[in-house]
């Protein structure tokens, strides 16, 4: 038996197929992954993300610490609740994890990191926090859900205490706020509008029941993966890891190069790579032939070399197979993928594939 979130009994009650995910017993789907996927694109779905790791950082030098710890620059955060997506790098520029930081004040930040990387993240953060006198407090006692979809906020709003409801509805994208002992953020991992809501574990069952009664579809890790793939959001461990820099994982936009004198862990290594002409591309692929692209399939680009699919699957919204892939440097827009000994044709497309319910690529 793995670790169980406060929602575990609710998953079983809803008929979930439970799988092991990084040591957690989590729902893969509750019957049909495709229906869950469509519910999020067209209406609203709820995901249990309580397995994710919430870390609060507190100290007079918390801002200085985070400017050193992560590749994006928390100095960009000036408004209460503002969120920042960033990578945490090792000295070689490899990605230890990708995470979100919420700005509470210059001395208080909240981070949400991945579940599967929890131990190494906490060890790494704590190792470096000491020099800055920053307290690192994991909030394992909290539950967290993601309510996602065009109607997610409307359907979830009644679950929020009346005194905070208007403020929550007024949250701008990529902002969060405290709501008593809850934390509500307009963030997600699906390419749709919605909230991620942190709450005491005792509230988890009641909120879950209320959302389902309101018509919000319970969604498992399967739909979470196809939704984030369509949105071209990276998955740690698939699209990047400690051997891959953000520059080869499509995440250069999350690296704050300026100010040039800010020292952050991994900076020297990725600056060297930045100037390298043979840096691999990270691209979106659309399969033009029939079949399904899968992780680790080999990509052949004639005249340029070989690459690999890092996240592949079937897009329920597009009705075709799509993928994220790392491919050789060079200027080209077609490639082939080896599937069961055959070469299938793929086209390189600008991501995201889907955003806010709309297909964003030429099919």
């Amino acid at each position: 038996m793995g670790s169980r979130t406060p929602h575990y009994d609710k998953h079983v009650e809803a008929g979930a197929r439970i799988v092991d995910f990084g040591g957690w017993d989590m729902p893969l789907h509750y019957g049909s992954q495709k229906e869950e996927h469509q519910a999020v694109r067209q209406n609203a779905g709820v995901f249990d993300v309580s397995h994710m790791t919430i870390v609060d950082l507190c100290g007079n030098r918390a801002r200085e610490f985070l400017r050193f710890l992560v590749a994006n620059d928390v100095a960009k955060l000036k408004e209460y609740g503002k969120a920042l997506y960033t990578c945490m790098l090792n000295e070689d520029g490899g990605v230890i994890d990708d995470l979100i930081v919420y700005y509470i004040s210059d001395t208080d930040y909240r981070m949400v990191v991945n579940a599967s990387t929890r131990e190494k993240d906490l060890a790494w953060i704590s190792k470096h926090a000491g020099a800055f006198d920053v307290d690192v407090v994991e909030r394992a006692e909290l539950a967290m859900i993601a309510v996602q979809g065009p109607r997610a906020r409307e359907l979830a709003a009644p679950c929020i205490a009346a005194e905070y409801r208007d403020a929550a509805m007024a949250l701008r994208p990529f902002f969060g706020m405290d709501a008593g002992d809850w934390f509500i953020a307009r963030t997600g991992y699906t390419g749709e509008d919605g909230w991620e809501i942190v709450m005491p574990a005792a509230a988890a069952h009641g909120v879950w029941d209320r959302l389902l009664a309101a018509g919000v579809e319970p969604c498992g890790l399967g739909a979470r993966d196809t939704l984030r793939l369509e949105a071209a959001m990276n998955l740690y461990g698939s699209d990047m890891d400690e051997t891959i820099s953000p520059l080869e994982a499509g995440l250069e936009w999350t690296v704050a190069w300026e100010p040039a004198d800010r020292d952050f862990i991994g900076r020297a290594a990725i600056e060297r790579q930045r100037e390298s002409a043979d840096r691999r591309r990270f691209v979106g692929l659309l399969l033009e032939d029939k079949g399904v692209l899968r992780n680790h399939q080999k990509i052949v680009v004639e005249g340029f070399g070989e690459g690999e699919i890092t996240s592949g699957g079937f897009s329920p919204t597009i009705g075709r197979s799509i993928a994220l892939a790392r491919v050789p440097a060079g200027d080209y827009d077609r490639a082939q993928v080896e599937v069961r000994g055959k070469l299938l044709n793929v086209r390189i497309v600008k991501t995201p594939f889907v955003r806010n319910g709309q297909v964003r690529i030429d099919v």
Partner: protein
Amino acid sequence: MSELPGDLLYTNDHEWLRREDDGSVTIGITGHAATSLGDLVYVELPEVGQDVELGGEMAVVESVKAASDVYAPVAGSVAAVNEELADDPEKINADPYGDGWIVRMKIEGLDESELMSPDAYQQLLDELDD
């Protein structure tokens, strides 16, 4: 899990066979297999006329989650394939023993000792549930 059709034979690999009047067999995957795979999104079918060995790769079914080989439970040649699966692979989820059939094979003979009765297959499923 719904009732297993009583007129079919089953395999350890969660496939079913139906003996047709003309001596051919129709083959598909069981409801258990379809449910385990999840929503099917693509089926790779063999060519009609192709010879298939016992245990050879006969088709590939791909779900939102993964690709899975369908191995030939009998040797023979492919007499027909369910073309409708090309556009609507979810027929396998919706009706695994009917509209979701995959291949029809011409065979020399059927060695039933290698196949399971509905009762034996149900027992296998019950053991998997434990």
